[in-house]
């Protein structure tokens, strides 16, 4: 598949915002929410979700008709996502408002924190199922897709929460959640590695023989029927070399997982603000590369029909 920038931005930014909301909600439930930074962090999460929402609109041919997307929630995961996303934004924005008004007390009702966690998990599930429900994109059609959207969101959310807490002048909260951020990043690396290993072993179910029904040991395409390309050649081929794919695969693992783990360990030991900011920057770049790779690695069976120009 050809990775679309709008979807890469939408899924990574929204994922990090969801993770940050989960981090703040868990901290609230545990009674260790940041006193002064809670409201700014919740506003930051709301802002990130809005930015993600705007990014998603750039994927549409007719953005003004987007309201129609809520109609098919019975069958379409995209429709469900479109319903859950604004509801989640309203929830987080409402909590941010509440936290701002009740600033000094910094007590958020526990039911609100609980609902925020449920909303974040629901949104991860809907987003991931958009991809996981397409049964013939074998790289995606697996529960690990849902697991990874959740773990990657959690990791980036905890790191974002820590880094923003440091910037908001609450290093205490940052050092409280540093072990959690480290654990979440390690967990995300583990689950993402599982899907990388699974995808490396995948054998495509569709072949040129099943795609054409021609029963012969050797069937090769001699012409795809056009010379100048079509939607089929633009949308489903990423065009990157095998070398670039290997670089992206190694690169995102270093930037999103390995480096942040080292930096978070440094932050944990020294309480360094710089370590948090570097971890945030490194992981953000790494997760953008990860999401690019997620799309690029998916081999669509329609590509069998578009192998040779002439």
């Amino acid at each position, binding site marked *: *598949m050809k990775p679309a920038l709008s979807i890469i931005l939408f899924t990574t930014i929204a994922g990090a915002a969801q993770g940050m909301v989960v981090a703040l909600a868990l901290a609230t439930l545990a009674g260790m929410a940041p006193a002064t930074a809670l409201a700014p962090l919740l506003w930051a999460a709301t802002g990130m979700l809005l930015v993600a929402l705007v990014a998603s609109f750039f*994927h*549409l*041919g*007719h*953005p003004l*008709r987007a309201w*129609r*997307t809520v*109609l*098919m929630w019975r*069958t*379409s*995961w*995209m*429709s469900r996502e*479109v319903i859950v996303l604004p509801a989640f934004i309203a929830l987080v924005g409402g909590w941010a408002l509440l936290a701002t008004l009740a600033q000094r007390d910094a007590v958020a009702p526990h039911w609100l924190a609980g609902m925020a966690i449920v909303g974040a998990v629901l949104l991860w599930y809907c987003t991931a*199922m*958009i991809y996981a*429900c*397409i*049964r*013939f*994109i074998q790289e995606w*059609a697996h*529960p690990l*897709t*849902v697991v990874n959207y959740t773990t990657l969101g959690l990791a980036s959310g905890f790191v974002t929460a820590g880094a923003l807490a440091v910037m908001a002048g609450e290093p205490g909260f940052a050092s409280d959640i540093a072990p959690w951020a480290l654990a979440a990043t390690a967990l995300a690396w583990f689950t993402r590695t599982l899907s990388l290993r699974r995808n490396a072993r995948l054998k495509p*179910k*569709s072949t*040129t023989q*099943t*795609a*054409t*029904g*021609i*029963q*012969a*040991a*050797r*069937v*090769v*395409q*001699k*012409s*795809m*029927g*056009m*010379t*100048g390309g*079509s*939607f*089929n050649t633009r*949308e489903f081929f990423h065009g990157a070399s095998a070398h670039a794919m290997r670089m992206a695969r190694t690169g995102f693992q270093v930037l999103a997982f390995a480096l942040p783990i080292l930096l978070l360990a440094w932050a944990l030991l020294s309480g360094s603000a710089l370590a948090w900011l570097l971890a945030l920057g490194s992981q953000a770049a790494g997760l953008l590369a990860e999401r690019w790779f997620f799309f690029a690695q998916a081999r*669509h*069976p*329609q*590509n069998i*029909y*578009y192998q040779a120009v002439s």
Partner: protein
Amino acid sequence: MNPVQPAPETLAKQLALVIDLNVCVGCHACVTSCKEWNTSGAAGPLTDLNAYGERPTGTFFNRVQTFEADSYPDTQTIHFPKSCLHCEDPPCVPVCPTGASYKRKSDGIVLVDYDKCIGCKYCSWACPYGAREFDEERKVMTKCTLCVDRIYDELLPPQDRKPACVKACPTGARLFGDVKDPDSEVSQAIRERGGYQLMPEWETQPANHYLPRQVTRSTAPQAQPKFRLGDFLKGEPASGKHKPGSGALEKDAR
């Protein structure tokens, strides 16, 4: 992940194409007639971009591709027309968030309501066959309609109420009809000539079927008489059935 979906509704009628790979010669007449009909319809033109440039590209509902099977000296060239297969369980329909993609209950045609399409392209991801093409100018997803604006048009003479591709095919490689009617031309062709579906592994149950290419064996005698120049110069026939000058045509010419 395969969430349990309700079994597809079985429709009483399912219009479809049956494509005979034995007789398709790869002339692309179906491609151009499809483009001509559908770019002239009420739904608006099918975009052509850079039409006179180096890399012309545009929206087509139908493509003819060419495949080569087996190895020399048994190589077969197979021309392979491909359009929407109007699956009985179309994976592109339930994923559509707006309901713009739908399958008609009355005749099983899978259609896009261009006024409801938001151009998110998700349905094209959910089609294993690459049957859908996004129109870059109209910004909506488009696909084969089985010429729904033609096959029911009572202003046309009955023999013309067929998809444009079927009408255009010079070799009669494209049959059109109801695959649920056991007595229809298409059902008989599928039954008697081994009609098959594409990518059966995904259980989409395409309505369109393909008739397999049969390798034709030569009926000529396998042992050809050996030609010797000396015999030919002497006027003696080679040790076979055929004598030069004994053909009916040559007799008549005398």
